[in-house]
């Protein structure tokens, strides 16, 4: 059964230095406040897993929390570069960043394999691409039935998977709707999981296309209103597209970035 905790307790008790932590949310429901809590508690040497690193990964990387990034698209959607990510890869600032890079389909299937309790997932992909050569967690595999050459991607089982959802009930059952990305698979693949929610309600009345994750699959739930901003939570608030555009300027320069983090996160 999920324990209802504060965000501070949740991150503090479930994460440790050197862990692999997945922070999932595909453009929508990005667990931004949980990322900020990781930064405030000054975790180090983390392996961060996210399909689309987005602003939260940029902030974690620039704050020196991340040793390795497992990802499939590292940009500011519709805007351009993630400058802290680029600075770490191109110039090793604040320290060098290891990468384990995939396509969305590939990293998604790593979560699927992790959630399925299998060592790998099989897919048709990567062949002929540079990722096939450079990414160690992709390998050729031959179909035992047809002989087709396919690709295996290694399962990923994060020490902690963090997602943000719209709501939970008092027992810790979680409900999310809208674009739900790979969050269910991330929670199921995680050895532990933390779900931040906009609010706790008496009853989870059904919503179209909702995903319910029962309390007995979750380690902890923390209330964090606005926990996705500047991403969004359907039914609660909209994506702050202007801030995504503003981030380009804030993050471009190291000093501006550090001072923004000091004023807004730390």
């Amino acid at each position, binding site marked *: 059964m999920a324990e209802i905790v504060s965000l501070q307790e949740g991150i503090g008790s479930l994460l440790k230095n050197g862990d692999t932590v997945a922070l999932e949310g595909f453009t929508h429901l990005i667990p931004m406040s949980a990322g900020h809590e990781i930064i405030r508690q000054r975790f180090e040497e983390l392996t961060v897993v996210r399909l689309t690193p987005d602003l939260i990964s940029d902030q974690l990387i620039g704050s020196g929390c991340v040793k390795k990034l497992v990802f499939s698209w590292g940009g500011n959607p519709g805007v351009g570069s993630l400058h802290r990510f680029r600075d770490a890869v191109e110039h090793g600032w604040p320290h060098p960043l290891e990468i384990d890079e995939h396509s969305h389909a590939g990293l998604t299937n790593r979560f699927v394999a992790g959630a399925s309790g299998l060592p790998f997932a099989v897919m048709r*992909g990567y062949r002929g691409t540079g990722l096939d050569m450079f990414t160690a967690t992709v390998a050729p595999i031959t179909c035992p039935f047809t002989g087709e050459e396919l690709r295996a991607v290694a399962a990923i089982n994060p020490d902690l998977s963090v997602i943000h959802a719209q709501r939970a009930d008092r027992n810790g059952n979680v409900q999310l709707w809208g674009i739900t990305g790979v969050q269910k698979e991330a929670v199921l693949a995680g050895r532990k999981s933390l779900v931040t929610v906009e609010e706790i309600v008496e009853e989870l009345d059904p919503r179209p*296309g909702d995903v319910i994750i029962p309390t007995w699959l979750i380690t902890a739930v923390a209330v964090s209103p606005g926990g996705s901003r500047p991403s969004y939570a359907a039914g609660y608030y909209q*994506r702050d597209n202007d801030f*995504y555009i503003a981030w380009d300027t804030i993050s471009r320069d190291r000093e501006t970035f550090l001072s923004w983090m000091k004023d807004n996160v730390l």
Partner: protein
Amino acid sequence: MELADTYTSDEMMSIAAARQLSNNQICFIGIGLPSKAANLARRLHAPDLIMIYESGTLGAKPTKLPLSIGDGELAETADTIVSVPEIFNYLLQPGKIDIGFLGAAQIDRYANLNSTVIGDYNKPSVRLPGAGGAPEIASSSKRVIVMLRQSTKSFVDTLPFVTSVGFGAGPGDREKLGLKGAGPVMVITDLGVLEPDSDTRELVLTHIHPNIAVEKVIESTGWKLRIANQLKVTESPTASELDAIRSLVSAGK
């Protein structure tokens, strides 16, 4: 001056791309130039174009140009929303997508695409965002249309990194690699349109946009560009096309 007499090369590119899309095609759309062209097509001749974004929004019908592939309006207007495993494993991989519509930072003569790095992979001079959905969109869509602005920086002789495969090193490579879709059928730029030669698979300039000199296209290509024997001139934008593109409102500033 008539509206149709003045337009930018970017407008021409978007309009030329929009003309390639038609009603009821299932189109997997990358953000940026492809998204703009597809949304333009929906406002012109293809209101029933089925737009799919990799966030899992199937049949999105946004009123504004989305800034990201996961904007709220894409979800609110979609026929349905599926998970990310579902969109890649159940829709794209088995070949249910008619057109994969992609942008990239760089392209080579065989329409292979780079959106990963400039320079050495392990020590890049420019780190680009990376693959996203593109490699599988390029390999598994029935057909692929690519859009990018043409210059010697983007049209290069040798790619530093192959993010998505077009025709590999030439004829037969897609088959050898087991890629199911037909690959790129068209590359639309701000200067013209390139199509793969049916034998060699090399991109050939088949259309040139109005008021663009062939020399300009040649100079903007990082390899010795082949020109089609019967080079055509793209039809100029109509007033209604320009009106439609100029009335598109972006979700971001």
